[in-house]
């Protein structure tokens, strides 16, 4: 019956075009469990059907890349036996519905992507975008997300060492919660991938029991929100960090003992996506007895078993003679294992329920033949570009007002709830602009920093896309790290709307171009579309996570003034100029970026910071609210500065201290620093100025003197001990 058919399409979130496509592939109508399989694997979340065409633009590599897109996480070679796996992923929709569990399971999921490959997780980072602090529910959302991350990350024993938190009304009904995890392989530790291999090998289920939580989660995350998001609460998963900790230890043990052939975690679309991907990638089939899956509740049926997104579960393939040693390891860590079936020679998934075959299908039809959409978009045109910034425009804000604003004030209230030191490798924590981890066997420094500034994205999606790579690269370079590679989490609104898709294409192309110029490939990532609620789309937010390497941690520049009398130098490569207003918006910008010039200049910055003779003691990238804000952040309880705006300021601007130029950096060092910077600066069409010197007691910008204690107090205590103080 037509109406029944239409209802079924709606239930499984398949379009009639998609149904026809599936029908054509199968040569018949869909039957039984196939509905659920196509629904899950052809969802936007699993198939990347709206983005795949453009994600190919990231397809460039470097000799460092050992594993890129297509696996659980990307892996790069750091040399000297050390390798790094990392990835970033979104958990936006679940976090808006149920903030604590949504954020917690976001952390759990990204960690599994890392240790599944055999890497020990060593760091976590979070990119969070919230709405206006005064918006309805926002206080509960912020509190919930932060405690979810804290509750999960602290218990599994992986330090959360950096993050970015934004507030803007465009996220009022659709917050962003992106989590990044970094894992380390030391000398001799194998990298494990997911393709199933070896006919007759066993398919083994490990970890938590399967329940109804998260059924249809993947397709839920592939839809815009209506007003009734609370009704979707049952599709949110529940996390158990203690179980995850046991899984980390036991999985790493079986991997290091070389007892397994392949492992895949059960993430979005649970058992379905893990088993179908393992099978399709390996070019073999898998027989799985669904009734052998350990259940939380005996009434859970085969379709729910296939779609459940219960957390802390893994699927692994092992040779039959290794089953007992594998079982021994997991049991020692208090976990049960269950053999579900075996690897078959022909590439066919054979699903059984009480010894009866309930589904037999070529997995590639679902994993490789998903529809691909080349959604309509328009060629990018800069929108708010002017020849000169308006003299009385934005930027005319006083330093204390800036420091106390939700956009700029300290995030200490958030990160004090995260364990930043467990693991004993943390050199620089969330207090710093770049998190630094000491690599244990070589003593080298690993820098981790997040990127993407929503205010710049709102200004211009192309500039914002470049900035999502260049800004973190500059932060790394200013501390002497060589940028190595990127992960991204592309958060956008509804791709079926041309303006959104145009922003997606413009920013992805810019990001891809920037990463090529930096020789820092995008090795892993995630796309989150349909961040749209009741017709309102979020600010397009291509969040990034970048890692960099430096040979030592001893001469790492500080991020604050260390010595009175030091010279303060501003080094600028002129490009785009603008100023944020007090609420974090940009009304216009002038100039344009020259991406090639930026990439070369970044190298020069790193070269100078790491050269022996430069004697740079501190550095800070000039970002939001310009040089004035950067100087305030460099100041301590005792050391400030006396600086002048003559010479370097854009005369048209009302307040030069809060205007920004892409790109500029403050370097602080032994007197005579300017001449050292100048030796390099001229070669890069860049200019450097001495702003003044470090001085005890106050921060004096031209003639306005600010008491240090007061500035710090405003910056740090804006939301006191509680987010409610801000809201």
């Amino acid at each position: 019956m037509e109406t029944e058919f239409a209802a079924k399409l709606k239930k499984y979130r398949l379009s009639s075009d998609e149904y026809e496509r599936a029908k054509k592939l199968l040569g018949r109508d869909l039957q039984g469990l196939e509905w659920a399989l196509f629904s899950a694997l052809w969802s936007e979340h699993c198939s990347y059907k709206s983005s795949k065409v453009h994600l190919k633009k990231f397809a460039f590599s470097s000799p460092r890349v050992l594993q890129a897109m297509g696996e659980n996480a990307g892996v790069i070679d750091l040399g000297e036996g050390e390798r790094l796996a990392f990835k970033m992923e979104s958990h936006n929709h679940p976090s808006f519905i149920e903030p604590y569990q949504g954020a917690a399971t976001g952390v759990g999921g990204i960690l599994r992507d890392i240790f599944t490959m055999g890497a020990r997780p060593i760091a976590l980072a979070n990119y969070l975008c919230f709405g206006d602090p005064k918006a309805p529910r926002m206080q509960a959302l912020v509190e919930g997300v932060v405690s979810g991350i804290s509750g999960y990350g602290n218990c599994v024993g992986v330090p959360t060492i950096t993050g970015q938190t934004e507030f803007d009304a465009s996220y009022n009904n659709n917050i962003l919660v992106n989590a990044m995890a970094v894992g380390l392989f030391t000398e001799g530790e194998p990298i494990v991938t997911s393709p199933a291999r070896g006919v007759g090998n066993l398919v083994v289920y490990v970890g938590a029991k399967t329940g109804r939580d998260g059924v249809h989660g993947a397709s839920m995350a592939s839809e815009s929100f209506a007003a009734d998001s609370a009704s979707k609460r049952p599709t949110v998963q529940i996390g158990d960090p203690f179980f995850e900790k046991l899984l980390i230890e036991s999985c790493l043990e079986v991997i290091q003992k070389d007892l397994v052939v392949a492992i895949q975690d059960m993430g979005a679309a649970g058992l379905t996506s893990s088993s179908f991907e393992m099978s399709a990638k390996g070019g073999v089939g898998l027989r799985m007895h669904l009734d052998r899956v350990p259940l939380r509740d005996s009434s859970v049926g085969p379709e729910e078993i296939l779609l459940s997104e219960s957390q802390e579960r893994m699927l692994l393939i092992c040779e039959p003679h290794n089953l007992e040693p594998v079982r021994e390891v997991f049991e020692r860590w208090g976990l049960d294992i269950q053999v579900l079936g075996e690897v078959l020679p022909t590439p066919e998934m054979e699903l059984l329920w009480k010894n009866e075959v309930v589904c037999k299908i070529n997995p590639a039809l679902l994993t490789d033949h998903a529809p691909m959409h080349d959604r309509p978009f328009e060629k990018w045109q800069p929108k708010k570009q002017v020849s000169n910034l308006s003299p009385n425009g934005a930027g005319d804000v006083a330093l204390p007002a800036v420091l106390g604003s939700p956009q700029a004030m300290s995030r200490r209230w958030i990160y004090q709830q995260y364990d930043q030191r467990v693991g004993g490798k943390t050199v620089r924590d969330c207090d710093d602009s770049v998190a630094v981890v000491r690599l244990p066997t070589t003593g080298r420094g690993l820098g981790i920093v997040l990127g993407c500034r929503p205010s710049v994205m709102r200004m211009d999606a192309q500039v914002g896309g470049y900035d999502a790579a260049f800004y973190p690269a500059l932060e790394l370079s200013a501390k002497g790290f060589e940028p190595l590679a990127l992960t991204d989490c592309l958060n956008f609104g509804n791709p079926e709307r041309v303006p959104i898709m145009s922003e997606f294409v413009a920013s992805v192309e810019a990001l891809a171009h920037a990463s090529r110029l930096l020789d820092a490939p995008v090795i892993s990532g995630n796309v989150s579309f349909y961040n749209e609620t009741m017709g309102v789309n979020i600010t397009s937010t291509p969040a990034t996570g970048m890692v960099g390497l430096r040979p030592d941690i001893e001469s790492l520049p500080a991020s604050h003034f260390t010595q009175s009398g030091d010279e303060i130098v501003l080094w600028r490569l002129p490009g785009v100029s603008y100023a944020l207003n007090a609420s974090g918006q940009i009304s216009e910008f002038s100039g344009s970026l020259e991406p090639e010039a930026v990439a070369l200049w970044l190298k020069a910055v790193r070269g100078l910071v790491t050269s022996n003779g430069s004697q740079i003691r501190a550095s800070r990238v000039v970002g939001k609210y310009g040089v004035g804000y950067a100087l305030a952040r460099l100041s301590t309880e005792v050391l400030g500065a006396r600086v002048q705006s003559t010479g370097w300021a854009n005369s048209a601007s009302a307040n030069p201290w809060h205007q920004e130029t892409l790109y500029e950096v403050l370097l602080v060092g032994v007197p005579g620093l300017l001449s050292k910077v100048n030796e390099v600066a001229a070669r890069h069409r860049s200019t450097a100025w001495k702003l003044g010197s470090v001085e005890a007691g106050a921060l004096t910008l031209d003639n306005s003197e600010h008491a240090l204690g007061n500035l710090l107090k405003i910056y740090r205590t804006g939301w006191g001990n509680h987010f409610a103080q801000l809201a």
Partner: protein
Amino acid sequence: MAQKPVGILRFLGTNCDRDVWQAVETLGLTPRWLWHEDTFHPADYSGFVVPGGFSYGDYLRCGALAAKAPAVQSLSEAAKKGQPILGICNGFQILCESGLLPGVLVRNEGRRFIDKWVKLKLRSSNAWTQSASVGRELNLPIAHGEGRFFLEADGIDRLFENNQVWCTYSDNPNGSLKDIAGISSPTGNVCGLMPHPERAVTTWMGSEDGRVILSNLLV
């Protein structure tokens, strides 16, 4: 003769075990794992550390399940023999739950997990503080959600009278009674401490003050 190894206890959910291992090695000593399900011979070790973490997920009271483990029976024997035992963070909670130390650690006053550097004062000497260090101020990190020490009023007075309060916060971060950060057994060989000395043993970690405590393992 080489010094006997330092035993590091591991429970399901312990997560500062590798950090303690690294710190013990940094001091030039040999660490050994002690698995929760196994008993051991105390005499084979020079001392013991019960690291922090979330043993058994802290789903019952913190440390309550770990306190029943076979390895803790052996640890009690070591305690009776006067061997040095240090419980850090969740390890402190386990020592309290197992009765090796008095009192209990409850949820922080602000009800949130706190990670920060704190100033501490060493107040009395024991197996983990030399008398020369008494009065010293230390800079160590804390990272806990349940670190507020609690004991009935007369019990607290007795702890002070017996010099069992060996470490206090200069600026109380969690509402702990009488600013208590660490206590010891009456004999001074069993000590509990909420801050993490193993996270402060080299300059790049931000402080070397953890050595003042952990270097007492060197005999």
